[in-house]
């Protein structure tokens, strides 16, 4: 089938977290249709509201980003907790929790549900694409995508070719990227690919510097912003990603390479254990007073949901 004839319109997005929501925003602002699948109705509702907010504020970022009305955006999204909805999709982007125990059974189920010939795009930060493809019967159609946050505003993404990924699957993904206004940097498979393998050592070492009392967080980040021209320093980047996500990625890298340079800094693990995960909890290496109310509400909602489930 010629790529230009291929129907790439209904894009399945599995996982409506931060990255998933950015992917959905990109999809709907580009005129495509997002089929959003998440186990949590609360996550789906939050994601829907955030997509509308992202689109509303998009003109602030760029005059070239399209202005799409709220009603039209709502028509371009459907939300469900049923994985079976993946059967209606032309391409799948998966962004669930970065844990093999979660991803493995998900891909086994997806492989049975998604029609033959449809590509699967794991949006994973460290788990190798070849490992994911191996639990499916379509490894040649599995192509890794590593989007960067905020997805709808960053025009480039890392694209990872698994061991068996075919040129066809790469072409389909690049065609989708064309529709989304994105460019790809192609890399080969390996734990952490290029971006996270290097960036996580960078962030982790920044935490060690903090732990050793060499400088405070603001000074560490200022060195990289002001001396090197980085948009964000390593510690504020970690707060943005989520300290739990950074910690888990380091653990995956450490398990994969068995190299101590990837060992997670004790201070980072301690902050995660203390519940300080960065922006998502209103506190990480920095405090975010304007985000603390939202974080508390989310926590309260999770407690209520848990209590309801327990008494049901």
């Amino acid at each position: 089938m010629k790529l230009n004839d291929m129907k790439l319109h209904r894009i399945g997005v599995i996982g409506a977290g931060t990255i998933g929501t950015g992917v959905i925003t990109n999809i709907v602002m580009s005129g495509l249709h997002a089929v959003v699948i998440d186990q949590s109705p609360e996550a789906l509702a939050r994601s829907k509201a955030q997509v509308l907010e992202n689109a509303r504020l998009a003109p602030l970022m760029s005059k070239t980003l399209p202005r799409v009305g709220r009603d039209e955006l709502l028509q371009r999204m459907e939300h469900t907790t049923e994985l079976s909805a993946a059967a209606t999709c032309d391409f799948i982007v998966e962004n669930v929790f970065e844990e093999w125990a979660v991803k493995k059974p998900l891909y086994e189920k997806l492989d049975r549900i998604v029609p033959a010939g449809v590509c699967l795009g794991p949006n994973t930060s460290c788990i190798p694409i070849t490992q994911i493809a191996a639990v499916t019967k379509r490894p040649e159609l599995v192509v890794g995508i590593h989007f960067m946050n905020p997805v709808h505003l960053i025009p480039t993404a890392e694209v990872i070719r698994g061991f068996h990924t075919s040129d066809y699957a790469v072409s389909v993904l690049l065609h989708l990227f064309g529709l989304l206004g994105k460019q790809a940097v192609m890399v080969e498979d390996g734990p952490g690919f290029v971006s996270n393998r290097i960036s996580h050592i960078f962030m982790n070492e920044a935490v060690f510097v903090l732990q050793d009392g060499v400088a405070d967080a603001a000074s560490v980040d200022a060195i990289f912003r002001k001396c090197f021209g980085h948009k964000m320093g390593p510690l504020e980047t970690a707060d943005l990603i989520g300290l739990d996500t950074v910690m888990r990625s380091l653990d995956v890298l450490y398990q994969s390479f068995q190299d101590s340079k990837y060992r997670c800094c004790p201070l980072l693990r301690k902050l995660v254990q203390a519940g300080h995960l960065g922006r998502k909890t209103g506190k990480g290496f920095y405090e975010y007073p304007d985000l603390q109310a939202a974080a508390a509400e989310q926590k309260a909602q999770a407690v209520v949901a848990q209590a309801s489930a327990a008494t049901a």
Partner: protein
Amino acid sequence: MAIQENGSVKESLRRFIQHSVQLPQLADDEDLFATGIVNSLFAVQLVTFIEKTFGLEVDAEDLEIRNFRSLNAATAFVEKKTQYA
């Protein structure tokens, strides 16, 4: 009093910006975006802060970086929208 209200809008914004960018000092007319002090994500955070703190809704036509480029610009924008001036 108008002057106190004016002062509190500016000071509220100053605290938010200084806390967000971890700057010990912030010039009132410093262009935050031109000098690379902040990135585009910050613009979204600033708009969200303004909407929540001052009870405004920023209209589509107001979503221009020039309205939020500096402490002075953001203060003038809030004053115009809330008629504190």
